[in-house]
């Protein structure tokens, strides 16, 4: 079946602009995670949803970052007043969760460049 999809794949924003990044998880997946991956680094956790509930947002770097998943499926990561340090690849992952299923499946990411 279809994997995790993300859009746009590339986004260039001028400093100070707001951006919205979309994630379509694998159908039926309960959990959804957002990660940030700086160049040459491993992904770092931003936030986690189980269905529509945001259970952990401890990784969001500032109050300019906001995520939502209103119907428990598609999720949007919004960054307000973008700064150059926000330039990174933003990855979304989904998983079944529960029981012994811990696997997380990643989308291709959105590369954000703030100029």
């Amino acid at each position, binding site marked *: 079946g279809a994997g995790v999809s993300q859009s746009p794949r590339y986004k260039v924003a001028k400093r100070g602009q707001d951006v919205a990044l979309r994630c379509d998880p694998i159908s039926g997946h309960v959990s959804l995670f957002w990660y940030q991956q700086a160049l040459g680094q491993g*992904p770092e956790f931003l936030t986690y949803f189980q269905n529509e509930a945001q259970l*952990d947002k401890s990784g969001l770097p500032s109050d300019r970052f906001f995520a939502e998943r209103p119907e428990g499926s598609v999720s949007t990561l919004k960054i307000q007043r973008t700064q150059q340090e926000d330039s990174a690849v933003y990855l979304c992952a989904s998983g079944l969760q529960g029981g012994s299923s*811990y696997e997380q499946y*990643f989308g*291709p990411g959105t590369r954000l460049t703030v100029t």
Partner: protein
Amino acid sequence: QQQVKQSPQSLIVQKGGIPIINCAYENTAFDYFPWYQQFPGKGPALLIAIRPDVSEKKEGRFTISFNKSAKQFSLHIMDSQPGDSATYFCAASFPGDKLIFGTGTRLQVFP
């Protein structure tokens, strides 16, 4: 305590060689240890994973060795191929929780 330390940073082997990538963790509450493979411009792809109740797991040419007492685990790639050239990340997580990634190992396999 939540860090996962990965080495080496880069690795070069010839085709047919057996690259080994090592990871170490501190928190004994971690319950799930996956390895991801990432090609340039792509998202990480789940390769193989292990739980702490087993010491080894094989899937095709990929093997995880897990040493619970040493809090270390490693990835071995048997009969490596040029197509295996990618960046490999280890990770660890608490049950059903976020993944904590290592810093990555860039593997190059030459023909």
